[in-house]
């Protein structure tokens, strides 16, 4: 057990899984970087934010495959190799780029097993960054995990801590289904205790990052950190907040969500994905249909507005949900 950053935890997970299983290959643009450059055989990037650093040096070009900027072929190659025996981990870099490649995930990988009568396995992982906060603009700041979660056949992981990141990534690699692994870019520097040995976290098990009696906050990724801030602040006022991090939104731990709602009767859902038809709306519908009797107040949603992610920091700060908005929502449900 030692303190590691979110980024280090991911790197360690990849490293350990590649050591364990020769079928695990990484592919993506600049996961090594430097191919074909005049500097010769170097690792120029190790992933644009350094998650795959060092892996090429250890495992070589046949298992750490730098690709052209060719998302369709990347995901197609991942899907085709997964269904024929490899366990690829494809790095989409920014999840926003799913748009140019989505057929291979949406129509191919996600459907193989079902469409082929259960005879196919597609053990692939698609990693990518999500989230606003870095001034990356409208095409590099989105959190489209809600879109992946609508597709049956895909599993969608949205970790919020270094510990979860490692355990969930190892689980994703070992999982025999296609997994979309969403890494919030503002979390890479987040540090936490992470065991040195490999471990897995089963999908569909939520974690309560805070336990409480008065209000349930359901949040993902960076929003979990914001929710924790609110919970700790309100605890000082005697308001006891439970923070539920579903960790995977497909499969979704409905039980843990509903049990918390049953317990507190008041719910705030924080979701960076969308102002409409997002993860928050899905969970709200779940609670409304199966936990309505427990509700003491209307469900409160904290989402971005229905706009693209703006660029200017002042606008972006106004766009992304934060602790202040979550706190206001908690107070609102408490007063209702």
């Amino acid at each position: 057990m030692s303190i590691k950053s979110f980024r280090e935890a991911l790197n360690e997970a990849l490293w350990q899984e590649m050591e364990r299983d020769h079928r695990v290959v990484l592919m993506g643009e600049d996961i090594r970087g430097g191919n074909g450059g005049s500097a010769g055989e170097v690792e120029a990037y190790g992933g644009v934010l350094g998650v795959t650093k060092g892996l090429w040096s250890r495992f070589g070009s046949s298992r750490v495959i730098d690709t052209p900027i060719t998302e369709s072929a990347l995901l197609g190659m991942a899907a085709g190799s997964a269904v024929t025996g490899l366990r690829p981990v494809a790095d989409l870099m920014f999840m926003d780029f799913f748009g140019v490649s989505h057929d291979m995930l949406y129509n191919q990988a996600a459907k193989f097993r079902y469409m082929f009568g259960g005879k196919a396995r597609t053990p692939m992982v698609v990693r990518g960054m999500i989230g606003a906060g870095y001034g990356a603009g409208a095409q590099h700041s989105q959190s489209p995990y809600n879109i992946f979660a609508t597709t049956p056949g895909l599993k969608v992981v949205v970790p919020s801590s270094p510990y979860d990141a490692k355990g969930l990534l190892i689980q994703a690699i070992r999982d025999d289904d296609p997994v979309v692994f969403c890494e919030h870019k503002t979390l890479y520097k987040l540090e936490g205790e992470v065991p040195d040995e490999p471990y897995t976290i089963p999908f569909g098990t939520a974690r309560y990052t805070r336990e409480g009696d008065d209000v349930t906050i359901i949040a993902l990724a960076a929003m979990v950190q914001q929710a924790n801030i609110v919970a700790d602040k309100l605890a000082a006022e005697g308001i006891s907040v439970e923070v539920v991090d579903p960790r995977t939104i497909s499969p979704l731990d409905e039980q843990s969500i509903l049990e918390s709602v049953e317990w507190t009767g008041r719910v705030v859902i924080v979701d960076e994905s969308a102002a409409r038809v997002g993860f928050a709306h899905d969970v709200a519908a779940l609670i409304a249909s199966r936990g309505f009797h427990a509700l003491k107040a209307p469900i409160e949603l904290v989402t971005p507005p229905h706009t693209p992610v703006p660029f200017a920091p002042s606008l972006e700060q106004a766009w992304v949900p934060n602790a202040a908005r979550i706190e206001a929502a908690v107070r609102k449900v408490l007063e209702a």
Partner: protein
Amino acid sequence: MPDKHGLLKAYRKMREIREFEERLHVENTTGEIPGFLHLYTGQEAIAVGVCEHLTDRDYIGSTHRGHGHCIAKGCDLNGMMAEIYGKETGLCRGKGGSMHIADLERGMLGANAIVGGAPPLAVGAALSAKTLETGGVAVSFTGDGGSNQGLVFEAMNMAVVLQLPVIFVFENNGYGEGTGHDYAVGSRDIAGRAAGFGLPAVKVDGTDFFAVYGAMETAVARARSRQGPSVIEAVAMRWHGHYEGDAMLYRAVGEVAELRANHDPLALFLKRVEGVIPQEDIDAVDREVAQAIDEAVARARAANPPAADQVFTDVYVDY
């Protein structure tokens, strides 16, 4: 050039495809078959000419017009027919249908209803073969319509970049749905365009089994010897419409009749093997194939549809 035994085997495959498709053309009118049917008649020599070089460790990715590829790659006729009928005994247990017949044990990665879907997947299969050193190769079938898709270009580029053992077969059957090849393929030259990605590309007569067979022989040899990917464009007009029920208003009167008379791949094949294979052997194959197709239809019709609870199974390996 295959030996006598190989020729008879190739003929049997082509005959199976022909009988299978023509029988579906008839059976489809009973209304028992759900969904769309895209028939392969007229292109038999391409599928068989390519797949005669492949074994079960090799993979093919197919198109929505995939029955011929399936049969050529060795898929079970009964399983295919039942799948097309949407029965639980189908190769995909009734969950795939005509456009998604797959048999991974035979190296058949699935018919693919997304036009241009197969090449990237074949690249992936080739990566597996290369990384796991199976000695296998991967083949993608794409139509002239699919040849224009961006992801097909991406796949060819990737295959060249990574030097993967993959062969991209473009079946130019003259039409993408109802739009002619001469209109939609801007350069009017699929092979020539492909060559620009930096890989060998040849154009052959797709109604000529021996032409296809020969081109594939070269391409497979390259792939297996780690010399990288190749492209084959094979031209063979389809006899039926884009889908069953297509009125084919885009085709000139007499075009199909002319094809049947002068460009029948089976007839052309038989002409080439006259004297090499005894007629009674041919007749025996014809009889046996007709029987096999009869049986496949009868079995498919008699089979049970999948139970309703099967709708929920096979989404995930584990969830």
